[in-house]
């Protein structure tokens, strides 16, 4: 079966994310667009993931509990977990490693943790778009060892991407790659190249979803189907 997936999205927790992009609205908008597997990947923090779990359950979407980690080289990497608890544990670890620098909401934007109704639970003080001080290869290895999927984000972007910041794609066991435009003008090492919306506002949800041919809508099935021959960028 062909399944519509979107594995890169922010919420109001990311400083650059719009304040009205709550986890619930993200899930509802994704549902309306027929997205069947959806990830929330805020910058270096997982505090909106529990609300995202509730929202996806209500919308009958398979959630992936993610983060977009900033490595010490300022490369963005997506880490995606099946299990909320494992994701929260890893997210707490990454957030702890961020420098003790406070966010200035006027400059960077608000960092809002909200409930299912979109009511404010807390504001995160630490600046979440700082660098975690984990190296690119450490992030890949650490996340894989915790059974997460690891996907270097927007590898064709001019900033915060593995190709822009490191200049090449290190030979590491990534789950897949993410690009803004396909095909990518680089050696993708036979990996599946996904497109993800990287939504920072409601109108960006679903703008770059892609499709994966997979036997069933489960995490295990997703994991084994992350192969170039199963990815498509248009509905069949």
């Amino acid at each position, binding site marked *: 079966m062909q399944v519509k997936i979107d594995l890169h999205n922010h919420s109001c927790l990311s400083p650059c994310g719009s304040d009205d992009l709550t986890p619930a609205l993200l899930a509802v908008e994704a549902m309306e667009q027929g997205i069947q597997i959806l990830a929330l990947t805020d910058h270096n923090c997982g505090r909106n993931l529990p609300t995202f779990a509730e929202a996806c359950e209500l919308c009958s979407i398979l959630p992936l509990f993610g983060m977009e980690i900033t490595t010490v*080289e300022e490369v963005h990497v997506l880490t995606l977990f099946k299990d909320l608890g494992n994701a929260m544990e890893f997210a707490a670890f990454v957030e702890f490693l961020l420098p003790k620098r406070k966010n200035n909401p006027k400059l*960077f934007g608000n960092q809002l943790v909200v409930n299912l109704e979109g009511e404010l639970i807390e504001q995160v003080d630490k600046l979440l778009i700082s660098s975690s001080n984990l190296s690119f290869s450490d992030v890949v290895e650490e996340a894989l060892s915790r059974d997460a999927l690891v996907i270097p984000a927007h590898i064709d972007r001019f900033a915060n991407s593995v190709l822009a910041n490191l200049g090449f794609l290190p030979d590491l066991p990534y789950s897949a790659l993410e690009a803004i435009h396909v095909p990518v003008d680089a050696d993708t090492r036979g990996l599946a190249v996904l497109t993800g919306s990287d939504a920072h506002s409601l109108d960006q949800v679903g703008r770059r979803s892609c499709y994966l041919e997979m036997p069933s809508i489960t995490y295990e099935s997703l994991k084994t189907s992350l192969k170039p021959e199963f990815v498509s960028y248009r509905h069949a």
Partner: protein
Amino acid sequence: MVVRDLANIQGFSQQCISDEPFEISDAYTGDLLSDVMGNAPSDSVLITIQAHKNTVAVASLAQIRALVICNNRSIPPDMLQAAKEEEIAIFTTEDTQFEASCKIASALGRFDAGQN
């Protein structure tokens, strides 16, 4: 020197500038924004290739008064808008970071820059 003096440096093209005559007493060259945020001195000019909006936010936080964007990279509209709001000047140049840094060291009279 003040921010406006940067416009007189050969090959620097002014994209936006504040009316305030901010003093520039130092410079910092770097493309890793986390490093810039932690180490760039205040009242400085940043020489970088990072032509995006986050550079303005980091500059504002570090009280950097001007950005020199090298290698002929173009300035996206949201970056320009943010710079105007934060009163941070932007100059673009075909120079590399090294060439731009040398010119700024000269303009600042920092001939001791390599001598600690």
